[in-house]
C-alpha cells in the first residue's frame, strides 16, 4: 500500500497502489493530505465521518477526494488518515469513511499547495499482480 507522486507539467499526479478498494481509498486520501501539507505533522486524534455514493468505484474515488478538498477549504480539515469501506449496493457504489485529522494550524502546518479539485483525467482503477492501482490528477 503506497502512493508515488509522478511528474506532471501543469498539475500533480499521484499513483496509488493498494491490496483492496478500501485501502486504495484510504491511501488516496493520505496522498491528498501529503500534497497539501507535510502529512507527518497532522495529528489524527479528531474524527470526521463521510458517506458518499456514486455509480462506479472510480467516480466514487473522485467524489471522495473532492469531498476532502471541500472540507479542507471550508473547515480547514486535514484528514491525515482514513478508514474506508467501499461496497456495491445494487446500481450504486457506496463509501463509509472515518477520517482522522485536525483543522489546519498554521503554526505547525506549512501549506505546500492548494488543490482546486480532483480531475477525471485518464481515471481508471486497475487490477495488478499486487492488488489494485490508480493514477489521480489533482488540479492545482
Amino acid at each position, binding site marked *: 500500500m503506497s502512493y508515488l*507522486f509522478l*511528474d*506532471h*507539467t*501543469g*498539475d*500533480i499526479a499521484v499513483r496509488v497502489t493498494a491490496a483492496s478498494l478500501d485501502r486504495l481509498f484510504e491511501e488516496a486520501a493520505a496522498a491528498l493530505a501529503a500534497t497539501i501539507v507535510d502529512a507527518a505533522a497532522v495529528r489524527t486524534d479528531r474524527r470526521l465521518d463521510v458517506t458518499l455514493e456514486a*455509480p462506479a468505484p472510480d*467516480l466514487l474515488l*473522485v*467524489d471522495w477526494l*473532492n469531498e476532502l478538498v*471541500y472540507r479542507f*477549504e*471550508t473547515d*480547514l480539515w486535514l484528514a491525515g488518515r482514513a478508514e474506508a469501506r467501499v461496497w456495491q449496493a445494487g446500481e450504486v457504489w457506496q463509501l463509509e469513511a472515518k477520517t482522522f485529522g485536525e483543522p*489546519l494550524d*498554521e503554526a505547525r502546518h*506549512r*501549506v*505546500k*499547495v*492548494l488543490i*482546486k*479539485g*480532483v*480531475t*477525471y*483525467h*485518464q*481515471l481508471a482503477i486497475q487490477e495488478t499482480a499486487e492488488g489494485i492501482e490508480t493514477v489521480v490528477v489533482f*488540479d*492545482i
Partner: protein
Amino acid sequence: MYRNVPTGVGSHRRDLTLSAMALRRVLEHGARWAVQEGFGRREDLDVVEEGGCLPGADPDRVSDRACERGHTQLGTLGSGNHFAELQYVAEVYDARVAAAFGLFKDQVTIMIHSGSRGLGHQVCQEHLREMVDASRRHGIELPDRQLCCAPIRSPEGRAYLAAMAAAANFAFANRQVMGHWVRESVASALGVAPDRTGITVVYDVCHNIAKFETFTVKGRTRELCVHRKGATRAYPPGHPQTPAAYREVGQPVLIPGDMGRYSYVLVGTERALGETFGSACHGAGRRMSRSQAKRSARGRSLLDEMHARGVEVMAAGMATVAEEMPEAYKDVADVVRVVDAAGLARRVAQLRPIGVIKG
C-alpha cells in the same frame, strides 16, 4: 499590497464577508456589484470584458457548497500561478497604440492574475460530475472523462453555462475588489488620496471561459459558443465588443510571463477574428513540471536570486515560489513573437516585474 490583498489558505479581509444575499448579487452582477459597493470607479467597467458582468448568470445554478467555498474568498488572490505584480513599462513597440492604452515607457503598472477561486472550482467539479453522466446519456464517446460534455442547448449544457457565467461574475468582482485595494495600497504608500493615485484600468479579461459571440463563417453571420481555455480574447479595431476607448486601435491583449522576466501587452487584430475566433494565447506555458521546478530550486535562495534581478517577491508559501520560478516557464518573449508574426495580435509594450505577490 501584500498586506491589503489577502493571499494564502483561509486568509481574507475581515472587513469583507458576504451575506448570502450579497453573494447572489455578486454572482448576478459581477464587477458592477463591486463598483456599486464602492470598490473602484464606474469608468473601470468601460474597459472590462462584457462590462464585468456576463449575461445569463443564474445564482440558483451555483450550489450551496460552491457558495460556501466562495463567501469568504472575494478579494483574495489564490495560489498556483495567480499573482499580483508591480511592474514597469520596459519597452514600447507601438507608441500610438500604447498611448491609446495609456501606457508609456518607464511607467509603473500593476497586473493581477486571479479568478473565481474555490467557488468556480466547486462549480466546475459538480458540473463535470453531471457531464460524465450526460455524455453517456447523449451517446458521446469520450477519449478521457475529463473531456466530458453535453450539447450546449441541452438542459445540462444550459445549466452549466448559467453557473459558469455566475462564477465568471464572481471572478470579475474578485479582481475589481483587489484592484481597489491595490489603489488604496498605492495611495497609502504615496501618502495621497485614493482617487489621486493616477491608477486607471487598462483592461480586464477572462482566459478560461465559454461565451456566445458573433462571427462571420464562410460569408454567413453566426452566433458561436467560443471556449477560450488558456486563451484570451483579441478583438480588432472597429469591433463592437472592443471597448469604445480602444475602438480605433483594437482590444488590449494581456499575456503574462513569469515572475522574473516580463509580461506583454498586445493589441487584437482582424486576422485573429478570421483565424482564431478573435483569440490569442494567454501565457507562456510551463517548461518544467512542478516537481522538476522544486527539485531545481533545492538548495537555492530564490528570493535572493530574484532580488539580484531587481524583483522583490512576497509569497504566502515558498513551495509556490519554487514551482513558479522563472525557468519553470517558457520564455514568453518567444511565444509573443510567434503570436505577433502570425498576425493574431501585435506587440504594444513589454512590462517587467519589480514586486511580485504570490499566493
